[in-house]
């Protein structure tokens, strides 16, 4: 029996590998200088969906919400085997917190209509909140299974999953449809397939084409740019290489629940972690130095 899977993927700054070139003079991280990558756990979510399709048949649709540049991770989804990809992009969605983001994603999933399984990575490395998956499931009114570490059988509309519970694991069964969040232990993501890279490397979303045209013809009048974008969109569509692009109107979103307006949490203050040398007692690596240190710790009652 075939199953239709949806995967939510995100493009994130590579916060795990902050190199010297991404550091500011004052010792803080220059976020704009970090490379944008496929959120690592979302690759495992994509792999889980592809494995369901390979085993039982069906489809894999990947959705990414973000700026036009997020189409990069959708191309990666195509390279790895996704059947359909959708870029969810709209300026009015900017500054959404997890509640607004999950509302928008759930509206997009509703717009797709029929589905059996939704896969998400457990969390994204820029925020590490792990909230969007469960919140999406609640908005869709379907059960959630978090921290999947092993996919089990799918039989007669019931999925069996082994989930990590921190100090052990449990195996649960749940009727479909269900939303599952995936941790890296679940699988080994497949690499992009060379044939698919050749086939899809020119795939673009309309918003990417618009940025391209504007960069090529900075002086051109608006209507000329619009006409050129339209020409390129149609050309790609004819080749089957146009990445679907949806905005908030397309998914029937209530604007009061999107972006800043739909986000109850507000960032009040941001403090950069400064990697600056502060004062500490230098202890020489000698018998005398160490003896003195131990003596001090005893006097301070730190060593008993």
């Amino acid at each position, binding site marked *: 029996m075939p199953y239709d899977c949806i995967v939510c993927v995100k493009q994130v700054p590579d*916060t795990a590998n902050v190199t010297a070139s991404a550091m500011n003079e004052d010792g803080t991280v220059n976020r704009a200088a970090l490379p944008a990558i496929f959120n690592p756990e979302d690759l495992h979510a994509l792999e889980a969906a592809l494995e369901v399709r390979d085993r039982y048949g069906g489809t894999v649709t990947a959705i990414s919400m973000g700026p036009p540049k997020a189409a990069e991770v959708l191309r990666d989804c195509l390279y790895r085997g996704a059947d359909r990809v959708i870029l969810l992009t709209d300026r009015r969605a900017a500054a959404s917190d*997890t509640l607004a983001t999950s509302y928008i994603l759930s509206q997009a999933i509703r717009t797709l209509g029929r589905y059996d399984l939704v896969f998400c990575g457990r969390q994204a490395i820029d*925020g590490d909140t792990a909230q969007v998956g469960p919140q999406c499931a609640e908005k869709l009114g379907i059960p959630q299974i978090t921290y999947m570490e092993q996919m089990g059988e799918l039989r007669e509309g019931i999925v069996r999953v082994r989930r990590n519970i921190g*100090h*052990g694991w449990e195996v649960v069964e749940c009727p479909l449809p269900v939303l599952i969040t995936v941790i890296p232990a679940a699988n080994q993501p497949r690499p992009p397939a060379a044939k698919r890279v050749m086939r899809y490397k020119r795939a673009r979303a309309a918003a990417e084409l618009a940025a391209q045209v504007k960069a090529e013809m900075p002086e051109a009048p608006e209507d000329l740019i619009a006409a050129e974008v339209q020409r390129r969109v149609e050309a790609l569509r004819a080749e089957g290489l146009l990445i679907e692009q949806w905005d908030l109107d397309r998914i029937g979103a209530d604007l009061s629940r999107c972006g800043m307006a739909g986000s109850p*949490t507000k960032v*009040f203050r941001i403090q950069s972690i400064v990697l*600056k040398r502060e004062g500490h007692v230098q202890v020489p*690596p000698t018998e005398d130095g160490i003896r003195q240190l131990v003596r001090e710790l005893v006097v301070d009652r730190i060593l008993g």
Partner: protein
Amino acid sequence: MEPNREGEVWVLAEQEDGSLHDVALELCGKARQLADQLNVKVGAVLAGHRVRHLVDRLIAHGADRVYLVDDERLAHYQTGSYARVMCTLVEQHRPQIVMYGATPLGRDLAPRVASYLRAGMTADCTDLQISDVTEARTGKVHKNLLLQIRPAFGGNIIATIVNYDQWPQMATVREGVMPMLPADHSRKGTVVEAQVALTAADMPLRLMERHLEPRKVNLKGARVIVAGGGGIGSKENFRLLYELAGAIGGAVGASRAAVDSGYIGKEYQIGQTGTTVRPALYIAVGISGAVQHRAGMEESAKIIAINTDPQAPIFSIAHYGIVGDYKKVIPMMLRALKERK
């Protein structure tokens, strides 16, 4: 929901098979402090089956009211049934703050509840404070808001999050960062027996099998921790760290680099993705001090860093720095400790 400034400060009393999770008691202590500032009561939500015996400990650690939901269908946690309990009680009693441990259970449950209530939710806080906040956009002053403080962006920034008007203010709080108050058995509190209507739709999951591993390592309770990093170089070399830990009555921990290199098991990992610790003394050996590691140990009372690289970031948070080879330095420490006795 509209802000309810008379609302209580709530804690989810996470338990498993009738024993309370440490973080539940840590949160009771924090809730006590916040509630005293706000001049309101502390409520603890205790859901499960045959869990009444846990009420006294929650009160001794700071709760004024324990909302007890005892139902055999709550014997095992699942998102749907526990979310129904939380949403029902929050709608009835309108607390102003709800805290959960940032445990696998808390991080599964809290966002589901927040989504249903359309409330703000901040994950994995390392500190919570009460303060008046002026809204930058409107200039409006909001009295006594909950400042939800957490590392973000891979630990490169500390963000303070607030929730002006879609309450309750909800947060998960990292384990081990709030000190547990000593139990005060003379404290008085009340039990509120709560009934929550559960339906089959709240319990879609069937538990087939469960496997729990006993916690072998108790890093959170250690007074002294000797932690090794990638600079240790091999599994065998960790023996020296065990020797030092043994000599001063401490526990051994590790950075992610040491765990990823296979020198030591994952249960020893300290940092953003491991355990958060705040011992009296933390000895960082061969640890460079990536932000992810520092997030899990920088609250330690005293930090000694031993590293051959004088530029290692760990020195920026250390109280004592020893630039040198740990293979020479640790034996010196062992000798100095012996002399003392």
